[in-house]
């Protein structure tokens, strides 16, 4: 029983990181109907920002997290402005190929600067509490609680603020939004800032949980988070969160009960079956016909 609970905590930790990254994919898709395939690499950049800030600026955890998020958010906005915006009216496939190119650029730029894996210093002293046969790690708790807080804040922004309303309006019909006096460019920039900022936060937390980082760490995690977004229903914010926790749960449970090499194989098989049953994802809907 304690073993299962322990694994559930691990699943929550991994799932919340997937969920944070998946949110970036789904938010960008929601407003631009494009997949930002550089997003996984922005997650990697978040981990490297964390490394740089912790090692060279000697800042503590919270300022490191905030600065890394801001840095990645800024990078995301710049990428959108210079790489994606000129292609806004081009076929979507051009934008997607550009995104893949931006991802390769980020990987190789980081590789040029840092050819060897880096080790993020422990920013938090990890305390382990033992309750019966159960061990609770403070680090794990912080990752889970912080991720959940970020997701709640995002959910609130999207559902209850004017900016969130504008984002939802753009996802429905971008052409009418300017007639409301809303600058579509500003809202798209804001969406990129928030989406990539969350990816950056995920990079920091991933770096805390698994401290050895390298320029290619974003590829597999990025693909998995993208799949989470699709499974949850691409474009749907709560769907991305659910997708993240499902994949985290499946991966941890497979590794707990089967040989760990089966992990990705079983996880992806289950996700494929889920998509066959629900092709639009768990919370996704077939795109409504606009009359």
């Amino acid at each position, binding site marked *: 029983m304690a073993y299962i609970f322990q694994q559930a905590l691990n699943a929550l930790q991994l799932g919340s990181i997937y969920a944070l990254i998946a949110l970036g994919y789904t938010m960008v898709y929601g407003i631009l109907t494009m997949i930002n395939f550089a997003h996984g690499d922005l997650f990697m950049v978040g981990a490297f920002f964390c490394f740089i800030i912790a090692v060279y600026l000697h800042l503590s955890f919270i300022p490191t997290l905030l600065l890394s998020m801001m840095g990645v958010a800024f990078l995301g906005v710049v990428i959108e402005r210079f790489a994606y915006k000129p292609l806004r009216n081009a076929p979507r496939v051009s934008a997607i190929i550009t995104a893949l190119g931006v991802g390769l650029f980020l990987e190789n730029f980081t590789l040029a600067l840092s050819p060897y894996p880096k080790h993020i210093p422990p920013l938090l002293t990890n305390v382990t509490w033992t309750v019966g046969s159960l061990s609770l790690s403070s680090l794990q708790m912080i990752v889970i609680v912080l991720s959940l807080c970020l997701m709640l804040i995002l959910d609130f922004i999207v559902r209850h603020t004017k900016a969130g309303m504008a984002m939802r309006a753009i996802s429905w019909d971008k052409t009418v939004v300017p007639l409301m006096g809303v*600058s579509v460019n500003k809202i798209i920039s804001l969406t990129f800032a928030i989406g990539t900022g969350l990816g950056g936060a995920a990079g920091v937390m991933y770096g805390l949980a698994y401290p050895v980082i390298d320029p290619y760490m974003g590829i597999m995690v990025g693909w998995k988070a993208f799949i989470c977004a699709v499974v949850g229903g691409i474009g749907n914010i709560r769907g991305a969160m659910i997708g993240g926790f499902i994949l985290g749960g499946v991966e941890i449970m497979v590794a707990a009960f089967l040989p760990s090499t089966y992990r990705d194989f079983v996880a992806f098989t289950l996700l494929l079956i889920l998509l066959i049953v629900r092709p639009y994802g768990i919370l996704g809907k077939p795109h409504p016909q606009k009359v």
Partner: protein
Amino acid sequence: MTKIDILLSVRSLSISYDSIKAVDDISFEVARGEIVTLIGANGAGKSSILRAVSGLIPYTGSIAYAGKDLMNIAADQIVAAGIAHVPEGRGIFGNLTVLENLKLACWQRRDKAKIAADLEHVFELFPRLRERTKQLGGMLSGGEQQMLAVGRALMTDTPMLLLDEPSMGLSPVLVREIFKIIQEINQAGKTILLVEQNANMSLHIAHQGYVLETGRIVLSGAGKELTGSPRVKEAYLGG
């Protein structure tokens, strides 16, 4: 001679899509406080003119609002300049509630008290919207969506409204209701540029009318004068 206060002035406006000219060297004016209508058959270029005024599509020529040239002004800033646009097909955000649709139109406003008063005014004009504030825009009927689209334009609190085919797809009863409300809004002080295929109804309420045929103005005059004109019929039949 009294000086007429021109609010919107369009000079030598031409609009092309790829190599096809949709609007060809059109000039007209809208005086403050009037309803001006552009009528013509499908494809005459009416909607393109409104889209150009709103800054949604590129054009040549000049469009000036209250003496200010609108050429390089972004669409969202044209709302700030004073023009609201009810687009063809209504443009309701189906994933937003009725109230959210109305509130989004207040994006550039900071006058909270006036916003609340204007919202109350919209609900008085369209009582059905009040009953449906929490419903998603996509769940409304065509007529309700049209009311919401006009209500939304009113919530921008701009002096001028561009209305693109408000009668489209509505039953005759609803068409009469919408036109009555357009007249009321005008009498309350809004200047209106109305684009319509329904020539009789729009000429009936308009102070000034322009008849368009394949991108050109072929006839203009006071609304009432044009109502019986055989030339109007020809424009529709392509004669």
